[in-house]
């Protein structure tokens, strides 16, 4: 992941957001989607993605479905009801964080 220290904390939110926009997704698809949307600026590494997916699954935020595709088995992830709620909460959290950072980085000019 590019500039991993800054993005690391947002990986879970990115995964949840993508899954909220798609019925189900598999690991490789998530990495490619992020790459496409950000035009290559953000690359999720395999070593970061799978532990995050497995953690979300263990926390009950994702459910899995295994389907046979192209001679192999594919593990799809989808949001559970609890996952949907968590997505909203995580997105709000991230938006607030971005706003706070913007205030710090480019504060509005004061007239005093």
């Amino acid at each position, binding site marked *: 992941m590019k500039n991993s220290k800054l993005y690391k904390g947002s990986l879970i939110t990115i995964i949840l957001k993508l899954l909220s926009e798609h019925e189900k997704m*598999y*690991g*490789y*698809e998530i990495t490619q989607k992020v790459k496409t949307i950000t035009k290559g600026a953000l690359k999720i*590494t*395999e*070593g970061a993605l*799978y*532990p995050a997916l*497995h*953690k979300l*699954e*263990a*926390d*009950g935020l994702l459910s*899995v*479905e*295994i389907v046979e*595709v*192209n*001679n*192999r*088995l*594919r*593990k799809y992830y989808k949001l559970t009801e609890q996952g949907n709620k968590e997505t909203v909460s995580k997105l709000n959290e991230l938006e607030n964080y971005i706003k706070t950072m913007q205030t710090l980085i480019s504060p509005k000019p004061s007239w005093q």
Partner: protein
Amino acid sequence: MTLTKQHIDSLYKFTRQHYVEHYDVQTELVDHLANAIETLLQDEPNLSFEEARDLCFKKFGVFGFMDIVEQKSRAINKRYWLLVWNAFISFLKPPKLVLTGLLVWVLYLTANHFENKMFVFTPLAILVFSIALISFYKTHKQVKQRTKLTGKKWLIDTTFTQLGRGVYLFSFLFNIHSIIPFVNTSQWYVLMFCTLAVFVMLTQYIIIMIVKPKLQQQFSQTHTDYLLV
């Protein structure tokens, strides 16, 4: 280009060579590698399958698949203990709280029938330990049978066999008291020990009768190759 069945089999072998012995973990990694290889071969058709595979594997970093396996194992263990905890908490809330209270009370009354409380607690400790031993043996037998029938090892089974040992820890804690005689026999002390004993037995019941079957059932629904033996 879509990879053939032979390519996929060789990828399973490749993951095994890189210390991923569990089928439930291999499956996801094989699909990931296969997707990455297919994309790479499309962009660079002159590469051989093996060259493309090695290039894609490099993206997993210096430790390869090892980190993923370790993290997944941790995630399963977390889920396991979360289920144990939730079930345990349910025994401390109504309506199950009544049952827990009743068990403590019955044990307390029984213990008070004897001058030496060890007449009650020692057989109880032996019972808890024996159940743990039987459960551990049965789980091992079950896992062995499943591996033999399917030819596959499952990470979730490792969790059952390894975390089943958690029961031993409880038994051990319980057994400590068999060694230390009751020096302080105040009623509060006896009641506290009865409560602890009931908690140990409840945890054992939850692990063997609730969490293990529940997790196995859930897992077999998504992984059709996982046989419930």
